[in-house]
């Protein structure tokens, strides 16, 4: 009898963790990433990607991004071709990823609306070259939606993106990147 009760208890507990695990994840597939090269000579090196995928586990603070390089749109089509073909080699390296953690998420009450400064620690992988980094971001919790925005710099050299001397004055060594994701709770399966 005792063992039956404890079995039931554990079964419920297991189901409980299952439920919790499902409801902890927040997700989007149409996040926004924008970058601009603020170089000496302004050549309009700027692109936007509106189909960035991002997931956040609010239990662990774990956060991941998946950015398809081909989905970056430039104003200049030829620039987009060169970006894919010569700089990012998007056939070889189709995606940039980020896997990290919101370090101070445990200290934030996620059940209440509000704005918080957050600290991200993780690995940004572009062209299969991982780079550990720490970034500041802002988290806004609004009626169960987690909106994360940030702006940071990515050094071309960190990911072995080679800039020919001929265009060195048109492409900055550090590219200014900003993103905005609106994460919504995943519907439990």
């Amino acid at each position: 009898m005792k063992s039956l009760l404890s079995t039931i208890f554990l079964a419920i507990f297991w189901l409980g963790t299952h439920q919790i695990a499902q409801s902890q994840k927040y997700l989007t597939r149409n996040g926004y990433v924008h970058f601009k090269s603020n170089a000496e000579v302004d050549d309009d090196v700027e692109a936007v990607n509106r189909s960035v995928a991002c997931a956040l586990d609010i239990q662990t603070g774990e956060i991941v991004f998946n950015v398809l390089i081909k989905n970056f749109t430039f104003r200049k089509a030829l620039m987009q071709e060169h970006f894919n073909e010569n700089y990012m080699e998007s056939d070889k390296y189709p995606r940039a990823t980020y896997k990290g953690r919101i370090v101070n998420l445990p200290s934030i009450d996620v059940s209440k609306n509000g704005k918080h400064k957050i600290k991200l620690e993780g690995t940004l992988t572009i062209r299969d070259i991982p780079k550990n980094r720490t970034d500041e971001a802002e988290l806004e919790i609004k009626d169960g939606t987690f909106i994360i925005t940030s702006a940071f710099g990515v050094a071309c050299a960190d990911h072995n993106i080679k800039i020919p001397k001929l265009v060195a004055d048109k492409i900055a060594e550090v590219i200014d990147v900003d993103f905005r994701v609106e994460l919504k709770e995943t519907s439990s399966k």
Partner: protein
Amino acid sequence: MRKYLVLFLLICTQWGYCQEDLFSLIEEPEMKVEEPVSATFKGTKIINNQSNEIPAKGVLQFVILHRFGSLKNDFLYNFFGLDNAQVRFSLDYSPLSWLNIGVGRASLFKMTDIWYKAPVIKQIKNGWPVGITLYGSANINGLRWPTDGLERLFTDRLIYVHQILLSHKANENFSILVAPTLVHYNLRQTASQPNSLAVLTLGGRYKLSKRVSLNAEYSPMINRNTGWDGSQSTPFTNALSIGFDIETGGHVFQLHITNSRGLSDPVFLTQTSGSWMDGEIYFGFNISRVFTVKPPKI
């Protein structure tokens, strides 16, 4: 006790599942997307012939083409042939993602031309292997008629070129193009000259580095153009050109040597006068510059 162990393991796997599976939530679906192959060639021309490429929608392209004097003809006296340069300017625009229209003017025969180019079927990555592009040009011979008292019509000036460009990007570096071509002269220069000539253009490129490629093209005539004087059987040779593409930002520089002086379609396809064997080779270049007229919203 075993039950506890099983449940414990279940819980562990459950947690394990949440831990490592976050990224799998945002992986792209396994769906096979039909992605067209891009950048089969760097430029819209291989050398003289058209490649399958067109500028993107809303982009205006200006191309300057030069062919200098023969390497044989007082090469240094004519400053490496620069003094005898043939010139062509062309301006084209892509109103649609699959249509390019343009106008050009070449100095040889004072030829003005208008053309369309439509990549109707694109090569698909890991799928359909051939890009099919239609190309057609109408060329207007602008030379003054001889004062021989004969009546000639405007339509007598017209020469049409039709091409089906079949392109294939074999890998990142190597692309080939085969183009069955028909050239039609409304007016024959001599009775022995055919009105319609078939040409088969073969072209290719090999990328030497990210920004430099080696290009070559050969356009053998299937039936011979016998030329201005019927007594000469084949005064015209097949055009063979070899060159390099150098790509920088918004330009493509194409430097090449060719036995064709003419820069408009019917001339290099069917009226190539130079012969590689006799050293009648011309150095030349094409420079393109693109202007984004209607940028897409980003």
